[in-house]
């Protein structure tokens, strides 16, 4: 343990790699099995069974799907812009995964006498026991989620197909409009917390969760996030009935799978972010005495939100394009602004 690299103990690097691996594998597995859960849940909500035949109750279905996609032929359209066409799935996928770097999924645990904060981009000062993480974590997440739109727009444009282009255009318009409301909705949380560090925001929620202080912001943020990650009822960019499959019409094989994974990884990120900002992150009863309960609470809350996303998908039909824009600009945006003003006024009088 005596060895140090850049003034940090060896254990720091080992813990870092372990945390990255755990978080990455967790997200990947959740991506795979949320596709299964979605089919199963929607199936049961439609009084069907969902996948049943691959493994016990269809449990191997995600693996079968993955294998099938992996062995499919890669098709690049003759008139496509090849470089952009190839790079687009990566641009969509990578931001979806790296947002997890700043989300705290647990408190501080102790392994072999070394304290490890359960958040990838964080560092604990052993002398003072204080956890330092990225102090603009929420901004980082907003930035990364807006990068994802580039992947979709590029995919739509590079495919050189009218369905893809329409899907890409719709996606960019929708994501940019709703990002605004989502960003404004969480401003009111930052007004309460006074910090953008996600670790600090979770610590402040050890008493009362922000969802009880900011119920409107919670609803607005969750609705806008659903729109931003193109999930029903806001899945216009890939409206099958109108646009075949939207921006990923021309994609096949693993590149198509990457868009699919990005979509589900985005859903997990959004649910994790909502948990962190509004539902107290890893906070819960008895978490003070058993630090390992933190990740359990965190995962439970994230999965509950994912279930809610699927529940919404089973319930609501798709919005029309003008309704979508009307909802985004004339309903959600003013509500978010009003929420900020009210939070400001109440905050002023309380202090």
């Amino acid at each position, binding site marked *: 343990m005596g060895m140090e690299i850049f003034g940090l103990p060896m254990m720091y690097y080992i813990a870092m790699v372990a945390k990255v691996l755990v978080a990455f594998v967790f997200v990947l597995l959740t991506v795979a099995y949320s596709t299964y859960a979605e089919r199963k*849940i929607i199936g*049961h*909500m439609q*009084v*069907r069974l969902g996948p*049943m035949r691959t493994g016990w109750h269809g449990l191997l279905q995600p693996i079968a799907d993955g294998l099938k996609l992996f062995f499919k032929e890669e098709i690049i359209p003759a008139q496509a812009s090849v470089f952009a066409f190839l790079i687009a799935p990566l641009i969509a996928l990578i931001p979806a995964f790296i947002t997890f770097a700043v989300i705290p999924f647990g408190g501080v645990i102790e392994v072999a006498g070394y304290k490890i904060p359960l958040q990838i981009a964080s560092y604990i000062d052993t002398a003072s026991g204080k956890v330092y993480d990225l102090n603009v974590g929420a901004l980082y997440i907003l930035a990364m989620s807006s990068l994802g739109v580039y992947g979709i727009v590029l995919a739509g444009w590079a495919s050189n197909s009218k369905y893809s282009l329409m899907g890409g255009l719709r996606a960019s318009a929708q994501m940019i409009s709703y990002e605004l409301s989502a960003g404004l909705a969480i401003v009111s949380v930052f007004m309460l917390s006074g910090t953008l560090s996600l670790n600090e925001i979770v610590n402040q929620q050890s008493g009362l969760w922000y969802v009880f202080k900011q119920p409107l912001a919670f609803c607005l943020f969750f609705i806008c996030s659903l729109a931003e990650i193109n999930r029903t009822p806001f899945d216009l960019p890939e409206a099958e009935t109108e646009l075949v499959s939207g921006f990923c019409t021309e994609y096949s094989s693993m590149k198509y799978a990457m868009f699919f994974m990005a979509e589900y990884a985005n859903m997990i990120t959004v649910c994790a972010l909502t948990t962190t900002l509004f539902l107290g992150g890893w906070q819960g009863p008895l978490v003070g005495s058993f630090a390992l309960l933190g990740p359990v609470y965190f995962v439970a809350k994230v999965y509950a939100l994912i279930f809610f996303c699927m*529940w919404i998908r*089973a*319930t*609501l039909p798709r919005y029309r394009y003008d309704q979508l824009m009307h909802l985004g600009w004339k309903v959600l945006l003013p509500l978010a602004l009003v929420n900020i003003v009210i939070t400001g006024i109440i905050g002023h009088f309380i202090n």
Partner: protein
Amino acid sequence: MNPITPIMNGLKITLSHMFKKPITLQYPDERPKVAERFRGLHALNVSHDKAKCVACYLCPTVCPAKCITVEAGEDQNHDKFAAKYEIDMLRCIFCGYCVEACPVDAIRMTKEFELANYRREDFVYSKERLLEKK
């Protein structure tokens, strides 16, 4: 109009459906219970070890799909019997008129519905294949 209530009602409905018993039938493993008077594959009734059919030609006459071919023969007792009785399942519409028309109750319809085959010839059921299984 309040937009929240319909969404809440919809969510309630989908959630309540989740706890209902799925109506899916896992077909090859689970067999469907067909109706009491289901009209499936035909069977020729047997009496005293012979088909009851007397080759009266009422069933090919009434058949709207013209899928029944009957040829009459004469046995040792000089009784008329069906020397040839064929039903083309590709043409049959399973209307059950043959059963209704039969004056001697020689034909009925079973609950058998899996009639797929690999060759077209196999869809023409001969008298031997139609005789009721004991």
